[in-house]
């Protein structure tokens, strides 16, 4: 009771404006998306209702195993493939870049400078970074010029641009930073004396990497993986531009349905996408406590 009587304006109140933004532009929109995924619609309006057609339409023919795989499963499968391949390459590249920065760069100033060099592209336009591959990978691009000149091929290679290859390349190009930052952060927390102890006990470089550094970097690896996987799961822009608008993705289905004003159908797809994404994250966060890592 005494405590209540002495109640002063608390510092916690400072979080109110921030909270309001998240209530109004994050929480309510997601709840509405869930509700509207059960609504009906026609060409020009959405109609309050409680139907499951939007969901059953998504999985139409999906459980008829005599036919070919349904569009929905195919799209998810292709998106999962992009997730996995992108995750693999960003992890390998991100890990070694972070490893170099954390253990081989001695001066703090250089560490900051090189780290900034890796970060700066993140603050520039993604679309520009995507289209900047055109002069390199296109039919008359530099890579094809090189291949033709050296005689490695006789005809220009078409699979370089507007293909699965260029999509993965762009993802790796755009999102390796999401791996570098958390892994680097984990590495900087490793007590150097642990590594020295392992070394003094006769471990070689590879053993130190595998038995000491990688286990201690696990939180960073998990956080980076969450970022990369979720960003690829919901993507429709990179797959659109780098796939020449020909390769499907879940994000793209939602986007197209929205442009035809089939909002409840888009909402149903969004709910499934969100549920899958959350499931993946939930499994991954079981492994670590994110808050301790900042």
């Amino acid at each position: 009771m005494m405590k209540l009587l002495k109640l002063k304006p608390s510092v916690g109140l400072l979080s109110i404006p921030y909270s309001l933004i998240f209530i109004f532009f994050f929480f309510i929109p997601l709840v509405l998306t869930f509700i509207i995924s059960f609504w009906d619609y026609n060409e020009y309006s959405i109609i309050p209702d409680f139907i499951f057609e939007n969901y059953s339409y998504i999985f139409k023919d999906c459980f008829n195993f005599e036919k070919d795989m349904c569009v929905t499963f195919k799209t998810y499968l292709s998106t999962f493939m992009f997730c996995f391949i992108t995750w693999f390459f960003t992890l390998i590249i991100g890990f070694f870049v972070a490893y170099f920065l954390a253990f081989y760069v001695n001066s703090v100033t250089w560490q900051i400078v090189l780290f900034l060099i890796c970060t700066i592209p993140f603050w520039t336009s993604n679309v520009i970074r995507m289209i900047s591959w055109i002069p390199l990978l296109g039919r008359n691009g530099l890579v094809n010029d090189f291949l033709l000149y050296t005689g490695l091929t006789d005809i220009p290679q078409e699979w370089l641009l507007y293909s699965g290859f260029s999509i993965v390349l762009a993802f790796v190009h755009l999102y390796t930073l999401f791996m570098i930052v958390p892994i680097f952060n984990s590495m900087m927390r490793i007590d150097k004396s642990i590594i020295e102890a392992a070394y003094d006990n006769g471990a070689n470089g590879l053993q130190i990497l595998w038995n000491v550094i990688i286990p201690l970097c696990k939180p960073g690896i998990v956080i980076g993986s969450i970022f990369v996987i979720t960003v690829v799961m919901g993507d429709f822009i990179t797959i659109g531009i780098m796939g020449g608008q020909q390769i499907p993705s879940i994000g793209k289905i939602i986007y197209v349905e929205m442009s035809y004003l089939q909002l409840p159908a888009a909402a149903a797809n969004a709910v499934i996408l969100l549920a899958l994404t959350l499931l993946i994250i939930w499994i991954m966060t079981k492994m670590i406590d994110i808050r301790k890592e900042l």
Partner: protein
Amino acid sequence: MLNKKNKTYYTCVFFFCLFVLFLYGPTFTIVLLSFQGPDGGLTFPLNGVSTYWFKELWRGGSVVDIGSAFERSMILGVIVMVLTVLLSVSAGLAFRKKFWGSDTLFFATVASLIVPSIVLSLGVALQFRLLDDFTKWLGSSLDINYINESFQTTLGMFTSGLGAQLTWTLPFGLLIMFAVFNRFDKSYEESARDLGATPWKTFKEIVFPLIAPSIIGIALFGFTLSYDELARSSQVMGAGNTLPLELRGLTTTVTTPVIYALGTVTTFVSFSVIGISIACYIWLKRKRG
């Protein structure tokens, strides 16, 4: 300790250089290609050197109204930047102690970073659509002339667009504040309080100067992420498109180096903002140090 200057070291250096080339090489090629002569195409070789495509861009030739899209993006970027700084710094201060709902808010912050952007964009668009319907219903049932005659939509750059972008920039701001306060030496503050300073004075004289360089970082994130934001903005900007949205449209229609010229200009803007921020950061650090 890891041996310096051995084979692994040089492999790592080589690998890092390759990575930097991979990061910057493509952007460099479009900057190069944007300075072609009037006969230039989308690929190499360079057909002469000129600023023709920049003049073309400036004239607005064959391109939608890029000038006003640029202006809109800049204005929105500055507003997002200011709000991101104000809201995330104040929330960051609040988070130094546990408060009612702090765990939920932290969860929402992290969730906002990893919710697929198209889902969020859809959600905000739906919300504002319902708001429109509600406003129209209100107008017709209460017979409000103003609404019945001139109301069109609540969806717009400074309503839904601004909100959707904040859900992307604010988490970065708050996470930076967390990183700052986790390494913050509280003893300065405590001595100020012991000497009788009010909370506001303590903040103004002690805390703020100490966190000022990091605030520059938050501002940098706020502006650049808004200026280049595309996925979350895609459904919620209403009538006026921002620069990245126009740019995305152009990727399918424009087949001249004018798009590279535009790329060079926006990249230049981004780099200038980054440069200025880094300079401010260093200056503030020095002043303090």
